[in-house]
């Protein structure tokens, strides 16, 4: 097809869309919604991916835990089974620390939750963890103001604590971390001195990671007893040793649980952060699938609407087509003219979809507090897919127009 005729087709298509602005707009809704859904979800999940990656890599792939219950339980049966296990005890932790040669650092943590008070200010259900000093290294906890507790404070089970920054907001009215150091708070009714404030960790999936209190493990034991099962945190020096260390720890724990090789149930949970990553991966791929479904449906509906409107457009312009054919427009030209119009229509829809998808993602990421990662390929994909919808749904109307008999068409009004 010659370029001059192609440009004429382009011009006519643009003029036709401009002449019917409202109709054009309404026609586009399906395509816009479909593309916007994909763009928003892809953009949001990309932002989440970034958050997840940075969150989990801070702990690194050199750490794993031993606990009674797995960190994620997906069924009631699993819970009942796991709940029957023996608690993880100090004895287990000592055995691991003593016998595991591939392990680099070993730490113990016990978890509970208590009300934290300062004067008449209080914060309910604050997660309180009793940890051994090595946990500061294993979890890479940085101190923003003050200091961690000392070895002697640990051994003497002093009532000292390190707090997350959320507590400053909740009970000190948002004072600077330095001002909180040295103050006395009541944790579960017991007075504690704040010796340090941990550096801000931020949020993940909209949940704060800074709402916590750390106290020395001996203090924790004094306060809450030794009834609850512990968490053993193990770190290897390099990721290469992770598997060896896990094998050793598994063997030590199985022996202590009296499990033979034939026992399938180990009697404890040995996990890395991969559990979270796997769960996250599964969740996001489900979200992708649902989104693709929604998008496909709206694009199909959008395509049908576009086809309908193109048929109307062909009918309305039968006379014009007759004139063009009468003075020498070939079938190919008329076909192209209407195809261009359909593609222009849906490409505009795709573009609007990309823009509104990005906007939606921007609003959500702003509210939920994760980074916004705009990707060019998703924009290109959005516009291309909608253009293809345009070609498919424009083909039949354009074909009808191209096949019109000039005399019949000229008779139309």
């Amino acid at each position, binding site marked *: 097809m*010659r370029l*001059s*005729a192609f440009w*004429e087709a382009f011009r006519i298509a643009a*003029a036709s869309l401009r*002449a019917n602005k409202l109709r054009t707009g309404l026609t586009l809704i399906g395509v816009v919604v479909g593309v916007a859904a994909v763009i928003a979800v892809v953009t949001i999940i990309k932002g989440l991916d970034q958050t997840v990656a940075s969150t989990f890599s801070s702990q690194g792939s050199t750490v794993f835990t031993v606990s009674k219950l797995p960190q994620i339980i997906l069924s009631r049966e699993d819970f009942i089974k796991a709940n029957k296990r023996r608690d993880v005890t100090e004895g287990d932790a000592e055995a691991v620390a003593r016998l595991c040669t591939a392990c680099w650092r070993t730490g113990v943590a016990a978890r509970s939750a208590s009300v934290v008070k300062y004067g008449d200010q209080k914060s309910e259900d604050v997660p309180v963890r009793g940890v051994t000093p090595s946990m500061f290294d294993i979890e890479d906890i940085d101190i923003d103001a003050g200091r961690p507790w000392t070895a002697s404070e640990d051994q003497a089970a002093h009532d000292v604590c390190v707090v997350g920054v959320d507590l400053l907001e909740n009970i000190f009215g948002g004072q600077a971390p330095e001002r909180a150091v040295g103050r006395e708070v009541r944790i579960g009714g017991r007075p504690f001195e704040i010796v340090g404030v941990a550096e801000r960790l931020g949020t993940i999936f909209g949940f704060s990671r800074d709402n916590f209190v750390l106290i020395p493990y001996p203090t924790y034991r004094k306060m809450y007893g030794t009834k609850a099962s512990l968490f053993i945190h193990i770190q290897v020096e390099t990721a290469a040793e992770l598997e060896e260390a896990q094998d050793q720890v598994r063997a030590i724990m199985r022996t202590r649980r009296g499990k033979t090789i034939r026992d399938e149930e180990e009697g404890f949970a040995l996990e890395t952060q991969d559990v979270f990553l796997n769960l996250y991966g599964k969740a996001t791929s489900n979200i992708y699938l649902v989104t693709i479904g929604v998008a496909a449906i709206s694009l199909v509906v959008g395509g049908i609407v576009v086809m309908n409107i193109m048929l109307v457009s062909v009918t309305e312009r039968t*006379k*014009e087509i*007759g*004139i*063009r*054919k*009468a*003075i*020498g*427009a*070939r*079938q*190919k*030209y008329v076909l192209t003219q209407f195809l261009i119009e359909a593609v222009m229509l849906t490409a505009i829809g795709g573009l609007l979809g990309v823009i509104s998808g990005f906007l939606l993602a921007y609003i959500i990421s702003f509210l939920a507090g994760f980074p916004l990662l705009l990707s060019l390929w998703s924009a290109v994909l959005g516009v291309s897919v909608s253009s293809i919808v345009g070609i498919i749904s424009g083909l039949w109307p354009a074909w009808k127009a191209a096949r019109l*008999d*000039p*005399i019949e068409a*000229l008779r139309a009004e």
Partner: protein
Amino acid sequence: MSNVILAAPPQTAALDHGDLLAHDAVPASLISMRDIWKTYQMGAEEVHALRGVEFDVHKGEYLAIIGPSGSGKSTLMNLIGCLDTPTRGRYWINGKLVSEMNDDELARIRNQEVGFVFQTFNLLARASALHNVELPLIYAGVGSAERHEKARQSLTAVDLADRMMHRPNELSGGQRQRVAIARALVNHPSILLADEPTGALDSATSHEIMNLFERLHAEGNTIIVVTHEPDIAARAHRIISIRDGHIERDERTK
């Protein structure tokens, strides 16, 4: 794609169509119709709009086709202009057998060989006079600079140099018809066809348009005009009278 379909040699034509057409060779005339029929199916009934029309038109002729309403003038004109195809018969333009051509080949003939002027103008309402006149050139693949120049010349030739950017609804009937004539002439067709070109115009304007046709004829154009007005027919040099789908009279008047 070749748009030039040469007629079959005379022998083959004779074999195909029997004795009646045995004398058919590739005609030397500009237009040549042999035993042209056009039949419309109206439900169970067949309407024969044309019944075996035969005639030739030579280069430079000025021909009028007259006849009562419904006699088949427009049907014939649409066939000559390659807007329609005959049910039966053979038709050549410039030695090309157009009665056997497909849709796109006919489009090419309409674009290159024929300039058609309609009673109701048939201009694109949303386009300027200039753009309307450029259209045939666009489909002929002429580049924009040359296209503008030719369209301008064509509009100037019909005295519309000062109305080029006007849209049809900003022009009088006579001016619209002159735009249509400029459009018909812009590709320098072999023949100019006009189906009741003054049918929608008042008599003064009609006169003006017919003067224009006379001038175009004097400049060497071949013209066929359909009309039912005797004084318009009288300007032509040859008159074909049609009745009930066949040629009743074919006479040279000048």
